[in-house]
């Protein structure tokens, strides 16, 4: 026991005496949380529309003013020619072009039918779909309006009417920060934990101080334990600190079952630290350790459902997530904090992560050799 305490003291001293690391461990995650939580929105706003009005009649101008008044679009003015409008679309100054052909009003009133052309920059598929969708609904209501205006109302208006009521549960204001803050927090805790532990042993190897440790009476288990415990504390501290910031700055709801998040964090960290440690025992240099850790972490993070929903991924990718610790924690922290899930609801994830943690750490201990070759 005493040996572990001595070991712990050495590790803590090493961490706190490295002045250039301290801000990276404690300040960088906070700044990132503050900045990045606002970044993750798919909300489509600011759709830039440019109008090519070749009709120039009262009707066409009325349509343009309706588009303007809808509030969905930023009107980038009118263009007299197709070519200059497409030029702006290519430059990225406009997302949608609305073309009103010549004789639009005449065709509509006399011929009973006229066409409009909507062209969208569809590289962002969602923006294009929603943007043309909004525009189409505005045009439809405009269509009804001018029918009335010209005294030809629809014959059958509203005979059947289905009212669709969207009810967003768990987050009625659709505040995406509530969704992102817990997720980003998980990522930051994971990054810090796994990199610190991943670099730790291999650093002693590379610098040569591992020799000194190998000749001490410290047992393998004590050694690993002493290496992991400090980062476990730091990880939990960051989790608490991040939640505090989330609650104070972003008003993320904190329920009474918040202890579940910490309980999960407490068993999640050994798994993450163990992964770092295992990498550390395999690699010879810090460079190798870092590349390996980076490789796995980027996969874990991008597949975790933080950015794009796991449900949209193909089946094989969802199966791959069975071994993704980050996905488990993000799932759990969101469920607990936003939906108020109880331990029974997340017990599956809890025991899986606990089990994975045990396996990884056993492997790390087995793979660490005191005898150098």
């Amino acid at each position, binding site marked *: 026991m005493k040996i572990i305490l001595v070991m712990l003291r050495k590790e803590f001293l090493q961490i706190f005496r490295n002045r250039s690391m301290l801000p990276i461990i404690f300040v960088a995650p906070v700044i990132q949380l503050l900045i990045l939580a606002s970044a993750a929105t798919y909300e489509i706003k600011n759709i830039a529309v440019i109008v090519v009005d070749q009709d120039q009649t009262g009707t066409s101008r009325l349509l343009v003013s309706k588009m303007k008044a809808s509030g969905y679009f930023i009107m980038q003015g009118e263009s007299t020619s197709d070519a200059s409008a497409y030029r702006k679309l*290519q430059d990225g100054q406009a997302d949608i072009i609305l073309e009103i052909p010549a004789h639009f009003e005449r065709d509509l009133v006399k011929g009973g039918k006229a066409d409009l*052309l909507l062209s969208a920059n*569809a*590289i962002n598929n969602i923006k*294009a779909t929603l943007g043309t969708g909004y525009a189409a609904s505005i045009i439809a209501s*405009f*269509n009804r309006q001018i029918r009335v205006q010209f005294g030809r109302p629809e014959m059958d208006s509203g005979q059947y009417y289905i009212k669709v009521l969207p009810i967003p549960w768990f987050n009625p204001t659709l505040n995406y920060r509530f969704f992102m803050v817990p997720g980003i927090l998980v990522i930051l805790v994971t990054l810090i934990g796994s990199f610190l532990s991943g670099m730790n042993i291999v650093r002693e190897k*590379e610098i040569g101080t591992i020799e000194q440790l190998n000749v001490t009476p410290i047992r393998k288990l004590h050694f690993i334990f002493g290496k992991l415990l400090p980062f476990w504390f730091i990880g939990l501290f960051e989790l608490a600190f991040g939640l505090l910031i989330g609650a104070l700055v972003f008003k993320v709801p904190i329920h009474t079952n918040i202890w579940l998040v910490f309980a999960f964090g407490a068993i999640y960290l050994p798994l993450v630290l163990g992964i770092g440690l295992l990498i550390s025992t395999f690699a010879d240099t810090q460079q*190798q350790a870092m590349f390996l850790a980076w490789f796995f972490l980027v996969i874990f993070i991008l597949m975790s459902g933080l950015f794009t929903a796991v449900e949209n*991924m193909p089946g094989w990718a969802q199966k791959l997530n069975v071994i993704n610790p980050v996905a488990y924690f993000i799932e759990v922290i969101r469920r607990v904090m936003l939906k108020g899930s109880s331990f029974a609801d997340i017990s599956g994830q809890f025991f899986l992560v606990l089990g994975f943690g045990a396996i990884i750490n056993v492997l790390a201990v087995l793979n660490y050799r005191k005898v150098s070759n």
Partner: protein
Amino acid sequence: MRIFLVFVRKEFFHIFRDRRTLLILFGMPVIQILLFGFAITNEIRNARIAIMDNSRDEYTLKLSNKLLSSGYFQEVLNASSLHEISSSFRKGRIDMAIVFSPQFDYQLHHEGKASIQLIADASDPNTASTLINYATSIINNDASSHKPGIAPNMQIGIREKMLYNPDLKSVYMFIPGLMTLILMLVSAMMTSLTIAREKELGTMEILLASPLRPVMIIMGKGIPYLLLSAINATMILLMGMFVFGVPLVGNVFLLGAECTLFIITALSLGILISSVSSSQQTAMMLSMVGLLMPTVMLSGYIFPLDSMPVFLQVIANLIPAKWFIIIIKNIMLKGAGFQDVWKQTLILVAMTSAFIVLSIKNFKIRLN
């Protein structure tokens, strides 16, 4: 000049004699682009829904079928109570619940209206709004197709044209960004360790005692990695085009030149990180914790920049990847020429020069 070549040769040996690192460097981008290219998507498919239909009449069954056959939704629960729905949400089993009002068909035909509740799991607001949008449009389309009557007079038709991405595939949105992300991170990471490593291992002293000037040391460190990154970039581009079907409409040489520029930007950023950090650990934390999340989130790779708050759009201007994503999308998808991307190119050039000047300034020729 000869000394410089010798130094570059030494750096090549460093890289090629570490087989494991080399394997990681080339294997990593390939695996990642394959994995993420398929897995990262915002196309909704098979969202898990619960249907609560206490009416069970002709109309609700037809509408349910219509929703399920759209490919967006799959029914995983036939709920009988709101309580059941709420507990499924908490267990994470469903993403949305569709609740038909009781006696739906009767109401619709006798009172002219009936209602449907779409209860979405808004703990993920992005998915929730997309699911609600899709379901609403399916239901509305169905309702309007049931309207009997005469074709109305004064009909405005709409022709839609989806430019650059007629099939509305999300790979067009994500693959160029993914290529940028991998190129940026791998390149910056490779160089971020080099100088810090010499410092930590003590071999820096030997370099400083040599007649090499700081500029040469920095250039010599960069050149071998430029070659490696160029190979990486080529592999990534080929995979983007042939595995994921992203077209190359523009000029291939322009694309190559822009890629080279971007690699140099990333490498010089890595060297800057390396020259300001005292140990490999610091360098690594800076390039990982500092670069990974901001590059993913603020480059426009996944989240559209113009939806973000203004202060984030300003910060995003500092992210080199943001500019390269614009360049690569314009060249590959829109067929833009140099006259369309010169502004972004100029910004990247300016950033690169700043990184290089700063690294030379920060490069200490004395040991402390």
